């Protein structure tokens, strides 16, 4: 084997009673792409945070380039040539690309020479690795894919030889993900070492050289990617066979429960995001909305759930109209049987600073089940939270734990449990399985299908074509704010892809 870039030996890390990492050994060869997969909460992010100096291991040894090192802060890691791209970007939104890149690496007060140097260095990096971004663009105006590129540039600018990416494709469109992988391959060809955490086994197969599987804090296997299969990896992760595509019976569509007519929504700048959209969702069916992120799906969900005002149109919930001028507050719609799993669980669906049990009533906190007069009925809330933790296998199963300390997938389960357990008539879900492991995807898909089979109307928005295809009874494709086509569940990926790219739409317009 080639020389190891990183060796982790006997790493242990506990958070109170939770043993996030136990006796982890990992060796990554220089100039390779190494994947790490594992269930939500398996300890992947923790392990990488230890390598990057965010956490200190309770015990164990880290070697970089063969030499034992101690990494106490991220600065130590950076000095050792380790760079990390976080799942949630750490960029200053109102700074330019250039300013973000030199942030923390500036070396004179007036910035003049730093900026000049950074500009030429950025230029070189961009050319070398195909990482094009406009250095003077302001971060908040860039799409996520480009923001991520800035994160990579930041790491490279600091001289990273080893690049860690934690779920980099969770927020990317398929095209953006493809581009990212081309960049990663190029980096590898230049001799960089890459560690990639992802839940998408397809990505592992496509790009990694070797792959390690974690389960419940331990490293259960390492494989050469060419010699393994998606099925084997999934099984290693979960410890049992996983259905990658959940079985479902024929849908028995009933009466219309949610009906959207000529809905038009503008964003805060007045740009039309949803343009005259109409569709129905019947009881007993799952309608999937496919589309590249940013084509109006988010705004559509927000308008239906009462978070955002609509400009015009009509939405009927269980046969009765919803006030779209913003008066219909989400609480009232909840009472009328509409449950909503928002796309952005971190800022909308959850309050990360709350304890788990507090989040398990968010939006239903005025339900008398959880109240004794004006007071919260803590006992009832806790019992209810424990119940959901058990049913949805939320880990760790501690309702007093701060929500920010749950892994991404488990946070998603907290939201799903809350919304599904209210037994709503209509369920709308944005990105049901973003950042969720294969086992949990199977679980969530089964739940969604079970809701359908109980006669509920389910509307799913996802940028994952696989997910849309395996869940939906009908697929609507959104492009530039419009529904540009409707297909059955057997539509091919290519067909949907063309619709998503607006190809047919443009032809029709001509």
């Amino acid at each position, binding site marked *: 084997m080639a020389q190891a870039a990183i060796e982790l030996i006997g790493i242990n890390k*506990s958070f109170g009673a939770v043993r996030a990492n136990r006796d982890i050994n990992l060796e990554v060869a220089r100039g390779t792409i190494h994947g790490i997969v594992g269930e939500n909460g398996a300890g992947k*992010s923790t392990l990488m945070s230890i390598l990057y100096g965010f956490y200190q291991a309770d015990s164990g040894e880290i070697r970089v380039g063969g030499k034992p090192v101690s990494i106490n802060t991220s600065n130590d890691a950076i000095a050792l040539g380790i760079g990390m791209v976080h799942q949630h970007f750490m960029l200053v939104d109102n700074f330019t690309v250039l300013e973000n890149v030199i942030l923390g690496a500036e070396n004179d007060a007036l910035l003049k020479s730093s900026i000049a140097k950074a500009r030429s260095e950025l230029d070189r990096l961009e050319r070398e690795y195909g990482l094009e971004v406009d250095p003077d663009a302001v971060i908040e105006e860039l799409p996520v894919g480009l923001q991520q590129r800035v994160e990579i540039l930041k790491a490279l600018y600091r001289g990273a030889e080893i690049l860690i990416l934690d779920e980099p494709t969770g927020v990317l469109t398929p095209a953006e993900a493809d581009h990212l992988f081309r960049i990663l391959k190029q980096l590898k060809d230049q001799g960089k070492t890459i560690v990639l955490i992802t839940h998408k086994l397809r990505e592992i197969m496509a790009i990694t050289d070797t792959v390690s599987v974690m389960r419940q804090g331990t490293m259960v296997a390492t494989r050469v990617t060419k010699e393994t299969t998606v099925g084997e990896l999934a099984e290693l992760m979960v410890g049992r066979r996983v259905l990658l595509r959940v079985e479902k019976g024929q849908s028995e569509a009933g009466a219309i429960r949610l009906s959207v007519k000529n809905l038009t929504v503008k964003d805060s700048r007045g740009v039309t995001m949803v343009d005259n959209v109409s569709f129905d969702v019947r009881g007993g069916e799952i309608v999937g909305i496919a589309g590249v992120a940013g084509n109006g799906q988010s705004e559509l969900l927000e308008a239906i*759930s009462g978070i955002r005002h609509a400009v015009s149109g009509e939405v009927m919930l269980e046969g009765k109209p919803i006030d779209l001028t913003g008066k219909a507050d989400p609480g009232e719609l909840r009472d009328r049987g509409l449950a909503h799993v928002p796309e952005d669980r971190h800022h909308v669906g959850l*309050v990360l600073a709350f304890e788990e049990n507090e989040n398990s009533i*968010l*939006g239903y906190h005025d339900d008398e089940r959880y109240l004794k007069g*004006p007071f919260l009925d*803590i006992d009832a809330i806790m019992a209810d939270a424990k119940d959901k933790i058990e049913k949805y296998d939320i880990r760790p199963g501690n309702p007093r734990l*701060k929500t920010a300390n749950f892994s991404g997938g488990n946070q998603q389960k907290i939201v799903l449990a809350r919304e599904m357990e209210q037994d709503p008539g209509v369920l709308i879900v944005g990105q049901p399985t973003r950042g969720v492991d294969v086992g949990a995807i199977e679980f969530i898909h089964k739940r969604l299908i079970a809701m359908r089979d109980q006669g509920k109307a389910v509307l799913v928005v996802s940028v994952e074509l696989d997910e849309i295809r395996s869940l939906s009874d009908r697929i609507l494709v959104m492009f530039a704010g419009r529904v540009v086509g409707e297909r059955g569940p057997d539509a091919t990926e290519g067909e949907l892809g063309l619709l998503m790219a607006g190809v047919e739409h443009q032809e029709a317009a001509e």
Partner: protein
Amino acid sequence: MSTPYAKLPAWADYGLIPLINLSVAFIVAGFVVMLVGENPFRAAVILVEGAFGKGTGIAFTLFYATTFIFTGLSVAVAAHCSLFNIGTEGQAYIGGLGIALVCLSLDSVLPWWVIFPIAIVAAAVFGAAWGFIPAYLQAKRGSHIVITTIMFNFIAASVMVYLLVGPLKPAGSQAPQTRNFLAGAELPKLNWIIELFGAKIRSAPLNICFLLALVMAFLVWLLIWRTRLGYEMRTYGHSPKAARYAGISETRIIITAMMISGALAGMMALNPVMGDQHNVAIDFVSGAGYVGIAVALMGRLHPVGIVLAAILFGMLYQGGAELAFEMPAISRDMIVIIQGLVILFAGALEHMFRPYIQALFASVSPKSVGMQAVNGKGA
């Protein structure tokens, strides 16, 4: 999700760090005392003895603390809803107006125990009303609450000056204040409690408002962590988007939180007005509202912390007064400097030493860090 620094155990978070901040404040203050040519150790002894050495000192310390508990709670309630209420000063001032109206019209006919509850309500209502206007402007028009509450402090001051040199001033009096209240509007003193412990008390203003303040601290705890309203306020405070999603009306929650905050501020006036001065005089709040900001920050917005921080500031007020008296080189202004240092280190620079302490903890016992993260309360 990953915080740059690991969490500390609760005792370090709530005990050690404030203690270190305080010590640093006092060390720096010591240098200032040295600069004016006095002995800092003797100054420290005078300060602490002045505040806690004798019964009278303790009573004064707790009297000041009472005032700061109210203003600290006021700031904290708004802060839990992510509203920075700088208007506690003005709300307390206007609360005093409510008390004046009640006392002046009823003190000749009713006993104190009937007037007191009425005055509490009046103080709360007047304070809440003064908090309502900036809240309404914030909720409906987006006028920033920090700016409007500051402006309202000035307006309150002007209104009170007008009233106290005009309509509320007894005819023929030279002083800009109301007439003195009769016995019906004088609150019972609490000095006997301290005397129970054997200390002697000359005259000191400690009165039953201290108990009221403790009750309010408990009620605020109940409100924030145990009621639906408190839950909604905290949700909005952490994430307005999540609050919108949860069906919490932004307008309603901002206005409610600010009115509760204003009510607590207004109640502060009970302590000096009915408990001590027995009149409403110009500028009787004298900065207690601003001290409330420091108290709330230092107490980490938690009622228990606020009570402790209020006692600390009460000590600085009382001990500081003694110090200015005993050491002529140390003027009143020097005391303000010391208070300022405490605010600077314990409030504004609260996090200055945190990274070092966290690094220390991490290297001494990595396990202890994060231990508490599991059961740490999101206070």
